[in-house]
């Protein structure tokens, strides 16, 4: 009975928690967003999400074989490739061809994750690496938007008041950019151009539709409601800390509010900024990726504020309508530095030098 006792270091018990259970929690958190994607984009979602997941998992498996891992299937059990696949799918335009989604997924896992040594070693968020690759290679495909299936698209052609137009032709952020460009043009040609206030009003009027998700945009990014439900689930389960989402949204809100206060005609409302584009998906699911975010709370604040601020700079001043992807990648790059600068101070203060 006592013949086979073992020795190992304390503690001898552990919380029933594993990398797999953490990843399953994230997948559960993504379910509302996937459901919303399925509701608004129907067949596109049904094709794109499984495609990305399957090709991500397959790529990880192949990489394990290439890396001569003793058990090439073992690391698939942590479901991290599944999470990457889902997040990539949700951040892609619905009408993206399947082959492009596969290329993106392969790039995500192979270059975004496995070349760094697999889970835990990657510097950049794999899903965003894949998305950046697709955006760089297939710019046209990545900016072609689809009408949500719940909108009667036949009406759009005859609608006079741009409301339906806003829902079908482009994303709210594209409209926002349009308004900003219109304003610039106006200053250039002395007020002869079209009215930027009308354009930004189109977006502002769509706030509720944007919150529900009934606008053009990436597969899983349109429905703010679904993302918030998933995010709150993760917060309740303590899978993520509130620091990063809160810091991202707060700093984005502040920047958007400043721009809105300066010129409420040219810039869209702060809440419209928060519920449009990848902001919520980023705040709750992408920026909170533990591997690529800082460890300390102070670091998380800096990281979150950085993501929010860079996103808004790109959206307001930059050339692209959306900047979440670049913001996350840029802040990922400085995460090791943030971690080094934001060291935790022990409970009893820094030890006095003897």
């Amino acid at each position, binding site marked *: *009975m*006592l013949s*086979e*006792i*073992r*020795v*190992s*270091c*304390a*503690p*001898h*018990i*552990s*919380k*029933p*928690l*594993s*990398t797999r*259970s*953490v990843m399953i929690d994230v997948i559960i958190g993504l379910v509302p967003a996937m459901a919303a994607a399925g509701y608004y984009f129907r067949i596109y979602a049904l094709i794109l999400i499984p495609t990305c997941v399957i090709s991500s998992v397959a790529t990880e498996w192949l990489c394990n074989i290439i890396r001569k891992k003793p058990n090439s299937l073992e690391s698939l059990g*942590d479901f*991290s490739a599944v999470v990457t696949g889902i997040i990539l799918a949700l951040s892609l335009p619905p009408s993206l061809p399947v082959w492009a989604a596969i290329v993106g997924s392969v790039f995500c896992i192979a270059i975004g994750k496995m070349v760094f*040594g*697999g*889970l*835990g*070693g990657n510097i950049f968020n794999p899903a965003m690496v894949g998305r950046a690759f697709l955006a760089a290679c297939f710019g046209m495909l990545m900016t072609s938007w689809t009408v949500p299936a719940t909108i009667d698209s036949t009406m759009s052609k005859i609608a006079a008041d741009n409301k339906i137009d806003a829902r079908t032709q482009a994303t709210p952020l594209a409209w926002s950019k349009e308004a900003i460009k219109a304003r610039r043009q106006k200053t250039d040609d002395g007020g002869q151009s079209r009215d930027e206030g009308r354009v930004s009003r189109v977006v502002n009027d769509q706030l509720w539709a944007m919150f529900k998700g009934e606008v053009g945009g990436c597969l899983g990014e349109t429905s703010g409601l679904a993302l918030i439900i998933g995010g709150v689930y993760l917060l309740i389960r303590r899978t993520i*800390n509130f620091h990063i989402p809160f810091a991202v949204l707060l700093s984005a809100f502040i920047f958007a509010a400043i721009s809105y206060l300066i010129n409420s005609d040219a810039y869209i409302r702060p809440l419209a900024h928060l519920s449009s584009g990848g902001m919520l998906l980023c705040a709750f699911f992408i920026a909170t990726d*533990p*591997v690529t*975010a800082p*460890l*300390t709370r102070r670091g998380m604040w800096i990281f979150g504020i950085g993501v929010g601020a860079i996103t808004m700079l790109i959206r307001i001043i930059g050339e692209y309508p959306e900047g979440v992807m670049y913001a996350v990648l840029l802040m990922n790059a400085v995460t090791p530095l943030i*971690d080094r600068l934001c*060291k*935790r*101070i*022990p*409970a*009893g*203060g*820094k*030890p*006095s030098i003897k």
Partner: protein
Amino acid sequence: MRIVTKGRLSFRGGVHPPGSKELTVGSEIQGGPAVKQVAIMLSQHIGAVCRPLVEKGGAVQAGQKIGDSDAFVSAPVHSPINGKVKEMGLRSHAVLGRSPAVVIEAETEAATKQPSWELNGDFDESKYSSEQICEAVRQAGIVGMGGAGFPTRVKIEPNPRLPKETLIINGCECEPYITCDYRIMLEWTKQIIAGTKLARKASGCSRILIGIEDNKPEAIEVMNAALQQSANTDAIKIVPVKTKYPQGGERQLIKAILKRDVPTGGIPPMIGVVVLNVATVAAIAEAVVYDSPLTHRVVTVTGEAIANPGNYYVSIGTSVADLIEFCGGVTKKSAKVIVGGPMMGIAIADLATPITKTTGAITVLTKEQIGRAKFERRQTACIRCGRCLEVCPEYLNATKIAHAVKNNLLDVAESYYISACMECGCCSYVCPANIELTGYIKTGKIFLARQKGEMPQ
């Protein structure tokens, strides 16, 4: 007066492992095994190792001092039984490895019984002077019985440079499975109160706070009732604290009760505080009033595999094997025998390891109790989730330290304050990747000590 048994006071961080105290919580302290032979370790405390005062073949009496040291930070050891010194040999120590011990063979095999102290509930400490108490504590070889084993005399003796104001009696017992302090609080209440008064007299503290976790409402009530019956206890207060591991760590207890931090690398007297365990203060009362050295202690023998788990009054020097056998042996296939509890205890391979003054429990765990992940010790990559940072009661960056040690970057480990770690095990407990963070940190500390020549290679 209604007694408040709920505590909100706590510290930041910590974990809530399942208590598993139900196995032994109702078990009264019983007499321990009759021993044929005991092995008294010459180092059962922090500080200088004792030099033996007896020789091989010599006769010893129960209570006779068999090892002592001239060093200030040290405590003598005594024989718990009448007998003959069989040998001066090496025995396994849970922390120190093979260490010198005096092995004594018993004259007669008498069962170990609890002495029936008849302490007056209304104990009056005024007839003892501070010096008398300190000397009695020193001579009795009392050390911190909560686990650290720091010589108690050094703690309670007044020090003009670091005046003490507050005495905290630690009755938290936050470690899962263990109930010995709880039973002591219920059954040895008068001794604890007498010992508390003596410690107050010796240390010159004006305020005394007894911290008890709020999962022990009975102990809080019994102690409160006893305090009310006893005279001159106005300055003694019972403070219920939140049930959380490691609430019984002295720095965490001070933080919870006084809202103050002990400086990193410092000791509680730096902020005028002394923390003593309940078992230690009970031993102080025995030592001062009855002139009885510390030769026995209460040990919880527990775990689902143990036939008769319970709290036993055991001779120091009894081997773990004898004690387990006395408890009816094990009924299930067991995976680990732990000296202490499952969070901070040390798994031993040698069942001849003797009980020391700091052994509060023997926990025998089966594979099921350890859990599959921990049993197989399959570690996966760190996903930097930061849970280890959240639970660290010392606010350290456990994953950075552990990975620095793993990659042999001791200077990096030091820059993340590796020495401030108190090895409570919270980080390893929560790690989803099952990384032995505490193990790496302990290893790193040993490497550093060797590097600095403070420890043999």
